[in-house]
């Protein structure tokens, strides 16, 4: 009998589930139609109100959640983009990368003659969301908080070390062999003589310091608020105190976030949008589907989508300042002998079709290049001409490549050589290694390429340890100065993982970083010369300057180009004009 009761229970359960499921399904479908109607009504309503009242909400997608809203911890595009939207620092980036006044009035900034002291005058009408005024003390606190090694900011050290006074002495590892006691963060070279004057002292002139003033690591912070929030700071909209054009109202992990115009922002009248709604969409096809049904105002295209949509009137191709190149590791244990040969490097650099690389790997209209400081990035301080004047030393030319190859063979005395090619394990990375293998093996006789596809994290480690022979990598600038590119290849430089070394090059770059800091024209030309040397020596084999392809509704204004450095967009200046 006992068994029978169990049996009834199971039966009841199963039937219950059947009914529940059916009713759920039915109700779900009913819901569908209902919500569908409601939604249509809503969208209709919205578009009407768009026309009448101008409720302008920008709807876009992001490929990832925001890793952090704490500006000093931000290390990725998404975090930078949205901390910039919520906060305002000394200066701000306007479209085309123009640096404009933020909390500090740019045209009143005083720079000492030696270029070592910057005095910023702050506007007095700026305030935090809670009504507190934004003062110079907030900047002092923000900068000190950033450089405090206990707070674990990567960018603070990267940007301030050796540049802002005492930064290097404050940011010291505990188990450093040198027994130097680290300085307290309050020793950082920043001060607030009064509420609305902020002074920064530098160790050496930093010609691109303007970019710093617009960078997210250097934002002011409301000390009282930050300390009150403690470990919860910046983890939810409630624990973020905005002083910028927008404030965050909702943030759901991995789903998306909502920003609303901040009415207490000092320049609120010049903020056109009423809000920004961002959805996390990792799949490119899903993003495009949402754009097609009108859920998004703008979408970034990837892979085959680019070609499919190239003829659309809504298609835009935006130039980035990221440049990609082929690296020849001259310190490689296994092939340094080859890599150190100039003809060998030149042969490799000229032997592959850059346009075909772009077609195969990205399928968009990125530009094949023969240089490594991007075009459209920095201009001559006097004439305003672009830094990049072009070069064809390393242009694609199979015949020339073969001549260099023969010369290298003779000098080095080899007939056949096998090189490994380090690449990631994503689809794009595999395309890259396959393309390079085919292209180089076909054009250079006796060369065999072995692809080594490893996960991204491992790839970076291998590069850092210089345990590779060939690899493709790229660089995007953090501040508006060619030095962020030419500094890459100085002897034993932090990021010089190609083992390139040239005294003349080093001298030019050191001059640009040091004694020429106050003579902009000479400095600019020194960096141009440095690039020329590195190209003639085929330190790397330039490939392309990347472009991003997007579809955007025509009513969207102010997002027609990417900023050449820093954040991609400046939402403060975006508008929807229907």
């Amino acid at each position, binding site marked *: 009998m006992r068994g029978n009761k*169990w*049996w009834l229970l199971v039966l009841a359960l199963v039937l219950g589930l059947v009914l529940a499921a059916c009713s759920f399904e039915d109700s779900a479908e009913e819901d569908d139609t209902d919500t569908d109607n409601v939604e249509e009504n809503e969208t209709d309503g919205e578009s009407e109100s768009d026309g009448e009242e101008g409720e302008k909400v920008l709807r876009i997608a992001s490929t990832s959640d925001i890793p952090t809203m704490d500006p000093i911890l931000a290390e990725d595009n998404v975090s930078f983009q949205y901390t910039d939207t919520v906060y305002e620092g000394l200066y701000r980036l306007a479209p085309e990368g123009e640096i404009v006044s933020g909390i500090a009035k740019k045209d009143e900034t005083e720079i000492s003659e030696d270029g070592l002291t910057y005095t910023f005058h702050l506007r007095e009408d700026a305030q935090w969301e809670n009504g507190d005024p934004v003062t110079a003390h907030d900047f002092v606190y923000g900068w000190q908080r950033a450089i405090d090694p206990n707070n674990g900011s990567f960018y603070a*050290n990267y940007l301030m070390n050796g540049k802002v006074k005492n930064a290097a002495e404050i940011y010291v590892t505990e188990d450093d062999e040198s027994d130097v006691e680290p300085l307290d963060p309050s020793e950082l070279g920043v001060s607030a003589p009064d509420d609305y004057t902020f002074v920064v002292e530098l160790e050496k002139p930093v010609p691109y310091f303007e970019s710093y003033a617009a960078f997210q690591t250097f934002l002011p912070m409301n000390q009282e608020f930050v300390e009150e929030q403690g470990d919860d700071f910046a983890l939810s909209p409630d624990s973020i105190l905005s002083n910028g054009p927008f404030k965050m109202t909702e943030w759901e992990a991995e*789903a998306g976030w909502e920003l609303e115009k901040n009415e207490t922002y000092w320049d609120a009248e010049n903020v056109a949008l009423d809000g920004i709604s961002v959805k996390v969409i990792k799949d490119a096809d899903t993003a495009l589907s949402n754009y097609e049904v009108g859920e998004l105002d703008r979408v970034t295209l990837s892979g085959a989508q680019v070609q499919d949509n190239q003829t659309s009137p809504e298609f835009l191709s935006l130039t980035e300042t990221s440049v990609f190149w082929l690296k020849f590791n001259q310190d490689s244990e296994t092939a340094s002998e080859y890599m150190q040969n100039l003809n060998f490097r030149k042969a490799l650099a000229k032997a592959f079709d850059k346009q075909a690389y772009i077609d195969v790997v990205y399928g968009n209209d990125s530009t094949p290049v023969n240089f490594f400081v991007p075009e459209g990035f920095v201009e001559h301080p006097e004439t305003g001409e672009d830094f990049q004047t072009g070069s064809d030393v390393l242009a694609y030319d199979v015949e020339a490549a073969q001549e260099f190859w023969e010369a290298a063979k003779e000098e080095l005395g080899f007939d056949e050589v096998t090189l490994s090619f380090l690449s990631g394990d994503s689809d794009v990375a595999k395309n890259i290694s396959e393309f390079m293998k085919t292209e180089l093996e076909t054009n250079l006789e006796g060369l065999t390429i072995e692809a080594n596809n490893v996960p991204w994290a491992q790839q970076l*480690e291998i590069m850092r340890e210089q345990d590779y022979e060939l690899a493709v990598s790229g660089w995007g600038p953090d501040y508006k100065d060619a030095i962020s590119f030419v500094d890459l290849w100085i002897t034993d430089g932090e990021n010089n993982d190609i083992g390139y070394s040239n005294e003349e090059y080093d001298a030019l770059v050191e001059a640009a970083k040091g004694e020429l800091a106050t003579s902009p024209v000479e400095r600019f030309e020194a960096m141009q010369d440095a690039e020329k040397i590195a190209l003639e020596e085929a330190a790397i084999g330039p490939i392309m300057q990347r472009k991003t392809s997007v579809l955007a509704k025509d009513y969207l204004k102010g997002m027609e180009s990417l900023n050449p450095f820093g954040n991609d967009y400046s939402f403060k200046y975006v508008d929807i004009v229907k």
Partner: protein
Amino acid sequence: MAKYILQRLVYMFITLFVIATATFFLMQLLPGSPFNELGGKMTEAQEQILLEEYGLNDPVPVQYAKYMLGMVQGDLGVSFQYDNRSVTDIILDRIGPSAHLGAQALIIGSILGIILGMIAAIRHNTWVDYSSNVLAVIGISIPSFVFAGLLQYYFAVQWRIFPPSFWEGPIYTVLPTISLLIFPMAICARFMRTEMLEVLGSDYIELARAKGVSNSSIMFKHALRNALIPVITVLGPITVSLMTGTLVIEQIFAVPGIGEQFVRSISVNDYPVIMGTTMLFSVLFILVILIVDLLYGMIDPRIRITGGKD
């Protein structure tokens, strides 16, 4: 019964301990460091500071002891990918949508599957049987993301019946649920059909028929119950994998679920999250196995639960 459950729980903890230990040490073998998202802009010194801060400079056994102690107290550590966000929060935030979709797909899928399987068995060797078979084979062999893509394209983009993605209400769950339920449905249908055929051919069913028991009574009271055993066996593991999210489906429908972290945490060396997701999966899995074992006894008293005499 209580003794049996208690004994199983003890085993469970031992198993979890072994899993945690094995995962912890295996994880140390992952190449790369957790802090290289920056594409190599970080200096050695900075990496040292971070390693120190997250306690990664301690010898591995010390890290292990610290982690296990924390875990016992319910502290799973802090994620490296999302600064300062605790692993517990990440899991709790994300498990909701995954579990919701999984449960929906499982319940609807298994019930449809059981019904389909029963019908196929009853109408053995007719067109009903054949077509249900074809459906089942399609459901098992075509991966769910193919259905997801097709459903999204037709129902969302072409006909605009459902929203293409996001997670904002019941209507948003329809397409992902359908894509997810096809597999459990197909599996259930297959197993149900085979088992039903076997049961229907057995002596006691013959006897019941001979006694003049009504057809529906035979089906539901005698046959279904016995045929359920294998179905429940296969549904156990499927439940766990459905409830913990599916990477591809979640990406296609932009569902903020946990599925992605099972893959991503490993590729970015986010140790605490790797541990967290692994433990989550293990706990659910072991629990489900226990429940399945208990269900066996409920459905078929011949499978005795014998308080640990083995």
